Structure formats: structure tokens, C-alpha cells
């Protein structure tokens, strides 16, 4: 922790970066902190409770500005950053990535290759919560799955916290705001909610890195992160990807293979 504070303070003091995105102690749990001077770097903390995916801020130009900035990125954030690189949303010369490896060492990752190399060492695993709910869903019949999700969807009031928290939802005008035609009705109702979440899952195929930010953000506790996570887990082997490791070019739905297998097209 001290190392991070020191390093952030130095980076800011020396003018290497104008902003360090990190975490501070919040009212209940750590929260994002925008450090713009070495003094506020003293507020920085970093531990296992720091789970916000700060990559969500990296595409907001009015926040990160035009100069080089640094971000403190646990592994989940790193995966998002990689995907953002692939999608042309970040440039290497503007971003400095700080992370703490399992041995507690502070690491600085500069290039996309650095990050990719580092991320490769980490396998993406289900946590206890994911395992529990997904295995419950696995055992359900189709009708039960439908009931389960309809019950969940009935709670959604379309605050779009899932969208806002997702680092990969950086569209300047989301499809739900497109009204010619109005693809998805903007009001909260089970169908419109369902359509929104199916749509979100489709947009995340081959992109979602299972950081879980959407699920964490949902104020009404819908396990929406599991939809995209399950898709990632199921589709990665289908299309020859490793879960949690973004493709270097394109994504699962923008590319194809001659021998993609399916059994349902007749």
C-alpha cells in the first residue's frame, strides 16, 4: 500500500502523469479516487476489497483529460483494459498501469504486450457466489429458468447501473437510446427489461471479461453479471478463446471460422 502511495506521489510530482486513478477508503468499502496531486496520493489504498473496475473511467475524456495518466488495476481491471485496447479505445502512450502482483510487488505495465503477458498467468475462475447461482441455474428446466429470470427482471427499474459500471459499455449513445426505430422500450417492464439484458449479453459476447462490475453495481441485486459471464464461459471454448483473455484482434462475433460447430441449423 505504502509503495503505491509513494509511487503515485512520485509520478504526480515528477509530472509523469497528471492523474492517478486508484482507491480510497469509502463510507462502507473502498471507492474510486481521482488523485491529481501527490498530496492526495496519501489517501490511496489498495487491498482485496478494492473491487471497483476503474477501467470504466478510462474512456471518459472529460475525466482523464488529454495527458498521460496512471491507473491502479487489479487483475479484473487489467482484463478490461486489454479489451479496451483491442477496441481502439486506449492508447499505450497515454496510460500507465500499476498493479500489485500476488507476491505484493508493485508492477508497472506500459504496453499492451506487458499487460497481456501479465494477465496470461491468471486463470479466470468462478467465485463461490457465481458457482452457487450458476449451478442452481444449470439444474433448472427451461421453464424454471424463464421463471427465475422473469422474477429477477421484475425488479429491474432500468437505472442502467450495469451499463454505467461496465468498462466496455462506452458507447456515446446506447442502443436503448436509439429511437429510430425504438428497438427496446425505454420504460421498465419485464419484457423491456428482458430485452435490455439479452441485448447487453449479446453485445458482450466475446468482449465480457467477467469482472463482475455490472452485478456489483445493480442496486436491486439482479445477478446480471452471471449472464455475461456464463456466455463468456460457454462461448470461449466454442470459438477457441481462453476465458478472460481478450482476442488480439476482433472478437468472437466479428470473426468466424470455417469449422464453427453447431447442431441446430438444418
Amino acid at each position, binding site marked *: 500500500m505504502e509503495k503505491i502511495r509513494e509511487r503515485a506521489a512520485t509520478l504526480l510530482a515528477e509530472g509523469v502523469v497528471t492523474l492517478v486513478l486508484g482507491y480510497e477508503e469509502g463510507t462502507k468499502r473502498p471507492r474510486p479516487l481521482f488523485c491529481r496531486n501527490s498530496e492526495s496520493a496519501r489517501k490511496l489504498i489498495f487491498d482485496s476489497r478494492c473491487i471497483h473496475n476503474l477501467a470504466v473511467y478510462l474512456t471518459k475524456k472529460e475525466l482523464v483529460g488529454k495527458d498521460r495518466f496512471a491507473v491502479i488495476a487489479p487483475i479484473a481491471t487489467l482484463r478490461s483494459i486489454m479489451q479496451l485496447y483491442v477496441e481502439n*479505445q486506449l492508447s499505450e502512450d497515454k496510460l500507465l498501469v500499476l498493479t500489485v502482483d500476488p507476491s505484493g510487488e508493485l508492477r508497472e505495465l506500459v504496453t499492451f504486450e506487458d499487460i497481456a503477458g501479465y494477465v496470461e498467468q491468471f486463470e479466470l475462475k468462478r467465485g463461490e457466489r457465481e458457482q452457487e447461482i450458476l449451478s442452481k441455474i444449470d439444474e433448472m428446466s427451461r421453464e424454471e429458468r424463464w421463471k427465475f429470470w422473469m422474477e429477477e427482471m421484475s425488479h429491474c427499474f432500468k437505472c442502467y447501473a450495469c451499463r454505467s459500471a461496465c468498462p466496455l459499455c462506452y*458507447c456515446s449513445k446506447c442502443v436503448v437510446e436509439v429511437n429510430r426505430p425504438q428497438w427496446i422500450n425505454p420504460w421498465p417492464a419485464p419484457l423491456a427489461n428482458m430485452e435490455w439484458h439479452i441485448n447487453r449479453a449479446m453485445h458482450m459476447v466475446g468482449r465480457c471479461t467477467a469482472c463482475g462490475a455490472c452485478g456489483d453495481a445493480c442496486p436491486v441485486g439482479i445477478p446480471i453479471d452471471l449472464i455475461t459471464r456464463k456466455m463468456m464461459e460457454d462461448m470461449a471454448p466454442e470459438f477457441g478463446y481462453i476465458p478472460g483473455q481478450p482476442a488480439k484482434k476482433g472478437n468472437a*462475433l466479428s470473426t468466424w471460422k470455417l469449422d464453427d460447430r453447431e447442431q441446430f441449423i438444418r
Partner: protein
Amino acid sequence: MSKIGVFICHCGENISATVDVERVAREVGGMEGVAHAIDYKYMCSDPGQTFIKEAVKKYNLDGVVVGACSPRMHEPTFRRACAEAGLNPYLCEMANLREHCSWVHEKSEETTEKAIDLVKMLVQKVKKNKPLDSIKVPVTKRALVIGGGIAGIQASLDIANTGHKVILVERDPSIGGHMSQLSETFPTLDCSQCILTPRMVEVAQHPNIKLYTYAELESLEGFIGNFTAKIRLKAKSVDYSTCTGCGACIQKCPVKKIPSEFNAGLGTRTAIYVPFPQAVPNKPVIDRVNCNYYKRGACKICEKTCQVGSIQWDREDEIVTEEVGAVVLATGFDVKGADFFPEYGYGKYKDVLTGLQFERMASASGPTFGEIRRPSDGVIPKKIVFIACAGSRDPAKGIPYCSKICCMYTAKHAMLYQHKVHDGESTVFYMDIRAGGKNYEEFVRRAIEEDTVNYVRGRVARVYEKDGKLIVKGVDTLLGGQQVEIEADMVVLATAGVANCGSEQLAQKLHVSYDPYHFFAEAHPKLKPVETNTAGIFLAGACQAPKDIPETVGMASGAAVKVAALFSNDELVREPLVAVVNRLAPPLYSTCVGCFMCETACPYNAIEHEDIRGRDGSLIKTIAKVNEGLCQGCGTCVAFCRSKSIDIQGYTHEQVYAEVMSLLND
């Protein structure tokens, strides 16, 4: 858009027999935004089109829906009619009431209701249509001809003679193709090489033709008028700029036992070789697979022999890029080989030959200098059997089609045999004799009557060897299925003509379609026989289906005319059904966020990057831009774009959404 005119066609009785067309017009006429709705016997007729034109003017229509046949038939007709009446042609749509409705359903209430729904759907679509302007693209007036057989030669010469440049690519070391392998040609029996080689030379010397032999198409990108071809020039290992074609290297080459492709395996050639004496270009290449130096790293005898030092061991394949405006595919055909006819002993018995091998044998330039001799012992066969339809018309062999040329060349072979072996006895087993063509039937009759060729109608079940003879067992169906058994000295199989190897891959490279037998598919079996579904790519010769020389030459000239017609324009007018990235007022400029995943999705590399800069030149954002020349309008990017920033003209989000909603909302 909401003064829509609806025109329902009876199509004689084709539609009106099962659909209550009056009711369709009546019900659709009551829709919001429909200003005029009528039905008429033949909408596509002159009076029918006049109705449309007059209504466009009278009612000031801003959209037209014609409920008639498939838009694949008459969409251009009605769009033109609208354009003539001053309505943008893209404000006209067709509802398919014939192929998709009246012809596939019985006369019933449901059928009429479906017809109403289909027309309503197109009315809702056309309300969302936007006037579109055709896209103009420049034309590169240079043609690429792939394949240097007679089709390619003819097409190249014809195009070149209209004053346009041609790039001719041939896979083998020489042009000439199958025709150069033939002995004489039916029905005139003139010498194939004698009529072909002057054309080959003309190609070599034509100032408008650039010839790449021993070369293959690597890739083709772009679109009609603007293709970029990458051509792989396979390493010949011989420097043609210095090589004199003296042939000394060929004589000294120690590797002499390679089966000659030109002679269909009957003769041999060396590792450094010219395929045949009249080859164009008449300079050798080294066959690296068989050359001692490339195999074992030592030999280089040819290099020592070469007076001018033309051997280039380290020569590598080279890729050249050519910009062309049109492509003629003339890659020809192939004949089925050994493993295909185990029942006829081909490949097992040396004296069972294919037609092509017999051609080589009968050719004065062939391995036997034109004498018919058994490959096994060199003895002149006294009894010879020709089996027509070897593979062709045999669904069990996967070739249900007729190879078309076999009847004729088998007659020719029998005739040539009789001319060369006067005391010989020839028998032809056939299924039917197909001799349609000028002087063809007469030619076959001549073989039967003048040259006493014995024609037996029936299939050969089996050919086997017994005591040095080939026993041909068959049935004579004209004699009531009587068993026939002939002891032959030689058997010649009129093997099926099949698509050239690699045609499937080539078709995929070129984005042209192909039929189940991998022959390239013409755009329309009757009316567009030389066009492919990909604009700017034309077909010539047997790559489309087996055909004889006059047909091939005719088709090649046809393709050449298509190319010349294309090149007669300085620019091309294309349908504007292409994708477009939205543009908005600042500060958003576009809803595109520049993830460029569409770039990887586009099959045509039509997505480009566009920088949006502020007044001070600073980069605001980079968004996708569609190159409308490259875009073919498949719409894959449209369905893929998460923010719906790309749309495709003619099938916009609003249009297809309106269609779907109309079908499902009562």
C-alpha cells in the same frame, strides 16, 4: 413518405387464380398513407407500367409498391418505370405475390390474407424508404483472364483487340490448355495444334496482353471496375530475360522419367522442361519436386549446360499486384482419373486409357508419334473398345450430368483408330448418342457407316484381364439385354469432365458461387450465362460446365464482349445499397465510438478510419467510414454494430423494423 401507390398484378391468372387480387387492392387501399391502389392483369406490360407512371404524377406519389412476381424478376422494370415518372427508383418496392404466395398456396381465404399481409409489409417498408442516388465508380480498363486454354486465349485476344490491356494468368508453364493436347478435332478432323498454336503465338506477341505463365491468382479484392489482383509467379528457376530457349538444359537433365502431364502420363519428361514443343513461352521451368538439386542439393547439370547462365536456383515465388477492372474466369476442366473406375480396370491395366490419353496417342506430337500402340507392349491393338459415359450420367458416381463432349470425341477416336489401323475392329459402348451441333450427327453417322465402327447400346459392367486380353463385359440393350463380351486389346474410357482441381478455392477467393460439382455458377442459366453473381467477373469455357471447342470459343468471345462493354464506360453506376456510418451534429459527430470491430467483420475490407478534427485540427474522435466502392451491401456490419451507428441503404433498421412490425401487428 405517405402517398403510397399500390399496384397489384394478376400476372395473367398466375396470381389471380389463387389470390383475390381485387380484395388485396381494396384492403391495402384503406391503409393509412396509401393514396391509390389498383389491380391489373399485367403490371409489367406497357399499359401496366403506364398506370404506374400516370399514378405517380397524378397522385404525387412518394412511394410505390407493386404486388406481383418476385422482385428478382421485375424489380428493375418497375423501378425504371418509377424513375421515368420522376420518382426516385428506390422508392419502389415489390411484394412477391406469385413465387411466395399464389404459386405455393391453394386458392383460399388464407392465401389472399397472406397476400394482403405481404403487400402491407412492403407498404410499411416503403414509407421508410429514402430516395437514393446511384454510386459512380471509376473503371480500370484492364482485364484479368485466368486460365490460358482456348477459352482464356480467345477471351484475351478479343479483349486485347478492342484496345484494352489484358493480363493472362496460366497455372502451367505454357498456355494452350487441353486443346493443345488434342490430336484432331471433331467434326472437321483438323489438327488441333495447327489451329491453336497461331493463336498462342498471337497472345505472346500481342502488345495489349501481358502473359504470366506458371502463375496463380493469390487473391482478388475490390469490386467491379476496381479489382486488385495479387498474382503468385511461381519460381521458374530460369531467367526468361536471358534464356534463349535453346533446350540444351533439357537434353542434359538426368531426371528423365517423370510422367509427362502434357502427354497425360503416357510419356515422360525431364525435371527442367518445356511441356511441349510448341509451348508458349517456349522456355523451360524447373520442376522443383523432381529436380535432383532441390531434392538432394546436388546436380546443377543444367546450370553447367546453360550458355547464358539463366538458371536461378534461389529464385523465389514472387507476388505481383495488378489493378484490373474485370476478370474472366477460364480455368477449364479436368477429367476423372484412375481411382474413379476400378470396375473398368483403369490404373490397374495399362491398356485401359482415358480419352485424353488416347488423344495424345493419336497425336503426331504424342509419345507414339501418332501411332496407336498398346502402352503395355507397344503392339498395335487389333480390337479396341470405347466406353462412353465413363462416370458421366451416373448418379452413383456423383456425376449425374452429361459431360457433353464424350459422344463426339469417342466417335472421333473410333474414326481415327480406323483410319490408322485399317484392319482394326472398334466397338463403342454408349448409353445414348448426343450429337447435337452443326455436322455432329453426320460425323457420328460417318463413323458408323463409313468407318464401320461397331456401336453397341449398353453399359459395360466390368473390364478384366484374361490371358493378355481385356475382357469387356456388357449388355446390348437393343438386343433385349443380351450379354456381350468382347476380347479387346485396348479399352478407352470417355471419362467424365469435371471441375478443375482447386476451382472451389478459387471461387471462394473470387467470391463467385459454384454449383454442387464445383463448376462456377453463371448468374442466370439462360440470360446471363457468362456473368457470375459477382459483378465484373465473367465466365468462359468449361469452368462453367463441360463444353466443346466452338462453344468455348463462343462463350469466351461473349465474355470478352461483356468486358469490352464494361470498359466502354469511364465510370460505372452502382446500386447505392451500401452501408453508411451515421453522422450527427457536434459534439457527437456520430454515434460511432470507433471500436472498429466492424473492420474485422467486413468481408470486403470496406471499413476505413475517419478522423474527425476540430477547427484547430485537433483530433476529436476517429470513427468508421464505409468505402462505398468496396462495400457490397451485405449488412453484416449493420447487424453487428452495437450502437446501431451503421445502417445499410435499402435495408435500413427503420425499413426492416417496419416490415417485421407490420407482419406481426394485426
